[in-house]
């Protein structure tokens, strides 16, 4: 082992650790969506289930928030794309002297905290509304309008950056050429500039939509009485969590993955087309080979099929044996609780009996009992009612049949040491004797 090897080993472990840090939380969160447990977790695994997805689709407020988010996202796209485009086009045309100022002001919203943007938008339009004597039902107090405007303030800066980088590769002489050939300014814009900017417009639109869709800081101030997906999520997460949120995350992660792959495929195809053109110009190739330019790429079809099949299987697997499995878990839990009660009784008996004499069955019981109750205890510990108490949510209304002492005991059972102590309590006390 040279120092080079050691360094390489550390570097790779570091990078792997980094990626684990990036993806670990997301993977764990995604997995919790498929566990039937009422609290999002993966240990212990109860039953594979897709019921949280069904639960999700029935949440009317979620659906409403989602619809609002999509509506707002589209509104932001409609506002931020033209604004960003004009901002980028204007950049090269403002006087040299003014340009740094112009750039600073248009870029500033990216750096301004979202909270501040939300407040200032809210205040500004409120005051404008007052100036015009507008009623509380007017547009100046409308959560959708305010949110679209507030988000577009900084999202336009994002789209502007997209356009600027694309425009840097634009040969402005082309516009002059078109004008010279008799085109009007509008014709030139439509026929020369827009086709060139088409990919940038598409990515700016996607960027704007996603940025809007996931925005929380600004939205939470401007949305007023409406709700979006993010404000809904925030409220839900704050008021107690369940795996339907994980299920939602799975949907979002899956869509993102899908989008990323699609983007990659698209880019590769563009690259291939470019290479081909270069070859043709050099005379190495006479005809274009890619005939399927407008047909879906086989890779995309394949991904689509695999995804559909996977989802279908998951759905059936998650719904079919679910009830049985749940019944089993319930039975198991009941058994564990019972066993525990029994054991506690035994233990008390033990302790009393220990002072007097030894019963031969005890050691046996202890040894045998160690592994099995250990795991089941674990499971019992995580039963939803229990958990809510532990997680600090104030849902104590349903403490029901479980006595407080029980919880305390479970907590002490939790640590393996305690576990052993309890399970093998008899033998230890034996030694002491």
């Amino acid at each position: 082992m040279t120092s080079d090897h050691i360094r390489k080993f550390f570097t790779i472990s570091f990078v792997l650790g980094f990626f684990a840090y990036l993806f670990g939380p997301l993977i764990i969160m995604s997995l919790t969506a498929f566990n039937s447990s009422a609290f999002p977790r993966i240990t212990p695994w109860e039953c594979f289930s897709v019921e949280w997805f069904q639960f999700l689709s029935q949440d009317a407020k979620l659906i409403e928030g989602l619809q609002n988010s999509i509506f707002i996202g589209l509104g932001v796209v409609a506002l931020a794309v033209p604004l960003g485009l004009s901002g980028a086009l204007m950049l090269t045309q403002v006087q040299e002297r003014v340009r740094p100022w112009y750039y600073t002001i248009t870029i500033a919203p990216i750096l301004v905290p979202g909270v501040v943007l939300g407040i200032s938008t809210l205040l500004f339009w409120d005051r404008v509304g007052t100036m015009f004597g507008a009623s509380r039902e007017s547009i100046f107090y409308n959560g959708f309008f305010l949110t679209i405007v507030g988000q577009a303030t900084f999202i336009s800066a994002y789209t502007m950056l997209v356009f600027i980088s694309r425009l840097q590769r634009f040969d402005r002489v082309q516009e002059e050429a078109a004008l010279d050939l008799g085109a009007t300014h509008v014709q030139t814009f439509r026929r020369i500039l827009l086709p060139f900017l088409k990919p940038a417009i598409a990515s700016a639109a996607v960027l704007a939509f996603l940025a809007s869709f996931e925005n929380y800081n600004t939205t939470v101030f401007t949305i007023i009485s409406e709700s979006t997906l993010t404000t809904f999520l925030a409220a839900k997460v704050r008021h107690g969590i369940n795996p339907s949120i994980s299920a939602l995350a799975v949907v979002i992660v899956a869509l993102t993955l899908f989008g990323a792959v699609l983007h990659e495929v698209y880019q590769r195809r563009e690259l291939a087309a470019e290479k081909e053109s270069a070859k043709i110009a050099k005379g190495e190739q006479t005809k274009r080979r890619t005939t399927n330019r407008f047909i879906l790429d086989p890779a995309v079809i394949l991904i689509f099929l695999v995804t559909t099949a996977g989802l279908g299987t998951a759905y059936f697997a998650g719904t079919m044996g679910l009830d049985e499995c749940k019944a089993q878990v319930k039975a198991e839990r009941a058994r564990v609780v019972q066993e525990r009660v029994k054991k506690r009784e035994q233990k008390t008996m033990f302790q009393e009996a220990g002072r007097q004499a030894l019963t031969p069955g005890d050691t046996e019981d202890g040894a045998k009992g160690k592994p099995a109750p250990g795991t089941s205890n674990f499971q019992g510990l995580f039963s939803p009612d229990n958990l809510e108490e532990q997680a600090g949510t104030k849902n104590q209304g349903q403490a029901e049949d479980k006595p407080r002492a029980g919880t305390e005991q479970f907590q002490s059972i939790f640590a393996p040491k305690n576990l052993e102590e309890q399970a093998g309590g008899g033998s230890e006390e034996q030694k002491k004797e």
Partner: protein
Amino acid sequence: MVRYWQDFFRKNGPTLALYLLISVTCWMLLMIVLPQLFMLDFSFRTNVPPPQWGTEAHGYTLEHYQYMIYGSAQSTDSYNFVDLSVFGRTILTAVFVTLIDVALCYPVAYYLAHVAHGGWARLMVMALIIPFWVNELLRAFAFKIMFGSTGIINNFLVGIGILDQPFDFIRNGVALYSGLSYAYILLMIFPIYNAVESLDKNQIEAARDLGSPWWRIHWRVVIPHAKPGITSGCTMVFMLTAGALAAPQILGGPSSLWFTQIIYQAFNQAGNWARGSAYGIILLATCLIFVLLVMKIFKIKLGEIAR
């Protein structure tokens, strides 16, 4: 000036010239400059109920800024320890989170740009984008699941016997700090990656050829080259962390308030918009000062940051 506008219209034609003028003016004035100015103005006014806004009762005052420092007049403390300490902790934590992110991202960015090659590197870079587009709230939620008292981390630590009691990561802020570091880490790694990647590999090899040890190559060649990227990443991460709202709301324990949460409370619970605005201005000013400071220290222009 007249000549400039004549040229402008001539160059763009009337339709496009109007489109450019109107949309840029709307964006800059109605969306960027005026709202900020109104907010600044509002933060200097007394807190009166909305119907009285703009009337004489709605006069100018410094009370909200004073409140931030001295607290309410009824309070027995000489300073507003609650808000000041939250503010201080927010800024310090943001700095801390920024430093952690740099330390985490630089080696990875370097690895992706210059050590890994081919399809793997490309795949990894692409994979980085995925967590970035997962909602901020959901990312915080994922950490809540992991760090919960019965979350996988506690289970694991207790399971292997390091802990004998589940540890309350949420209450003591560990969850919040890791969640915040996680939340904007990609805004750190991409600028650094882009900057490091643009470095000519030959430079590194030349340095190695001259017998420079690996740490010196980084210190003298790679880091100076990546400086704009690092600065850009630091600025973005600091600003976003200091202004974060979702992660503190979800991951913050009952005692660890975040400054944005105080602003949020002023607006949504206390109904004191004026104080909320004043606090917002304070946050904005602090962030701007920080950015200017970083730009000054590292001698970087704004244009290089927002790229």
